[in-house]
């Protein structure tokens, strides 16, 4: 394992210390329990937005804390859900009296830890609602699974709900908005190479020299199939087809797109994939209203990318344009 780290057990805390040091004007980090919080929290009268999950997906979630997005983020150990005490402390710290929205990716561990935390917060009189993101089309949903995984749409939901809270939406409305984002967002990813959890020391899976994992999860979970490497054109088409067919997206739709890097894929390749995606959408008369290209929801040093499409209405687009000031996403300020 080749990483720029000290003791693997200290990775999360030392990295968070660096995040805090790098962005003092935007956020603070509390260490006991661990959470990242807006420098100016709580904002009286504003609904608080809290997310969290395992670490190793940076900039998500800590890098999305700041004006116009998250009020706090709860980072767990690498690829491990945060714990109820973190979530409880963060939730109570950002409550400005209007209640707090939890944005949760659909993983059993995340759900159960946020559930326990919500019970504790409600016991303390803090109103909490939850939005569960489950947008990964790679895994078929069914009564016999924990359901679809939450991936890229989480980033868009955090931006849009953050803007809505900033505009004064009440808790019920922000939660409903978040669920609407989730209903209209779909994602699919692929891996060219695996990643290694520092504490584990070995790659989570192994790929042959010409093999990729189509539909990979952000923790390296297997997806739809192991297949041989193809051109960016073919791979982008395959991801896009899966995403487009699922909602389905149709001609005339306006969308927000995200071409997301898994961590080790150069920006040069992500722009190339975005170029392929734009051509696919143009051919279907789907209009791209806004686009993100870069590393937003990563898997440590995994090579690969994911595509997220959000079918946008006027409310989404208007909220998307609101100023946002976080380490990972910034405009208008």
């Amino acid at each position, binding site marked *: 394992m080749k990483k720029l780290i000290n003791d693997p057990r200290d990775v999360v805390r030392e990295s968070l210390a660096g995040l805090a040091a790098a962005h003092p004007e935007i956020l603070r980090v509390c260490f006991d329990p661990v959470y990242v919080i807006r420098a100016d929290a709580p904002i009286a009268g504003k609904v608080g937005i809290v997310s969290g999950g395992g670490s190793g997906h940076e900039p998500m979630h800590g890098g999305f804390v700041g004006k116009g997005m998250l009020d706090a983020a709860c980072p767990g150990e690498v690829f*491990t859900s945060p714990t109820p005490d973190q979530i409880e402390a963060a939730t109570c710290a950002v409550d400005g009296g209007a209640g707090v929205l939890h944005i949760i990716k659909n*993983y*059993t561990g995340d759900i159960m830890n946020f559930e326990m935390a919500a019970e504790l917060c409600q016991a303390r009189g803090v109103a909490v609602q939850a939005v569960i993101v489950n947008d990964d089309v790679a895994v078929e949903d069914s009564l016999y699974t924990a359901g679809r995984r939450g991936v890229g749409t989480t980033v868009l939901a955090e931006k849009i709900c953050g803007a809505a809270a900033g505009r004064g939406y009440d808790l019920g409305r922000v939660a409903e908005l978040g669920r609407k984002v989730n209903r209209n967002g779909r994602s699919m990813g692929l891996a060219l190479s695996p990643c290694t959890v520092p504490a584990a020391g070995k790659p989570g899976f192994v790929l042959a020299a010409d093999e990729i994992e189509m539909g990979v999860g952000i923790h390296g979970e297997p997806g739809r199939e192991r297949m041989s490497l193809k051109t960016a054109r073919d791979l982008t088409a395959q991801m896009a087809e899966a995403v487009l067919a699922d909602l389905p997206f149709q001609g005339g739709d306006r969308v927000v797109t995200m071409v997301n890097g898994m961590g080790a894929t150069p920006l040069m390749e992500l722009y190339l994939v975005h170029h392929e995606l734009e051509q696919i959408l143009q051919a279907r008369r789907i209009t791209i209203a806004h686009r993100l290209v870069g590393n937003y929801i990563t898997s440590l040093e995994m090579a690969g990318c994911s595509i997220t499409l959000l079918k946008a209405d006027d409310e989404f687009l208007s909220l998307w344009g609101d100023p946002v000031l976080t380490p990972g996403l910034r405009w208008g300020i």
Partner: protein
Amino acid sequence: MTVSTADVLRWLTALQRVYAENRELLTDLDRAIGDADHGTNMDRGFTAVQAELSAHPPADLRSIFQTVATVLIRTVGGAAGPLYGTFFLRVATACAGKSELAAADLVALFQAGNEGVQQRGKALPGDKTMVDALLPAVDAMRNAFERGNSLAEILERGAAAAEAGMLATVPMQARKGRASYLGARSIGHQDPGATSSYLLLKTALDSWRS
């Protein structure tokens, strides 16, 4: 023969060692059908439990298990944290007022723990989870108790049933947790959580048999 507060503390100390020793094994099992962290999670949790117990030794059985529960919930994370945390919360409640545990108490205690796990995780037998080790163990212990077996025998039956249940997860297709994302690809692998649950009972047996 009964299980004393000292016995319980020996069990918890042993659990730290056992999960440290089986850290790689559990993580490798989780690598096959999960995200390669179950061993790390359990090791981190029970190491923290020991630290807390020696820093602030609790007065009685109930508060010992209360401490175990809150420390696990605080330090394990993932799915196993809330599940084992809930397990020990229920165990603590089941110990209320007791200073030592007789056979009947032990059975009731593990049963309460498993019920907590099932309520928190909504898993049924056959879903390829820790429940597949815990539930058979509880049933076996109850039968053994009703047949009037000794505490040692009860624990032996429990551990044996947990081991069988753990091995029975191999051919199962996961319907809960991360492994369920693999669908049929989860078949043929032993469930990490069922394995850590077996270790929980096996270690109780080893710590209390004598």
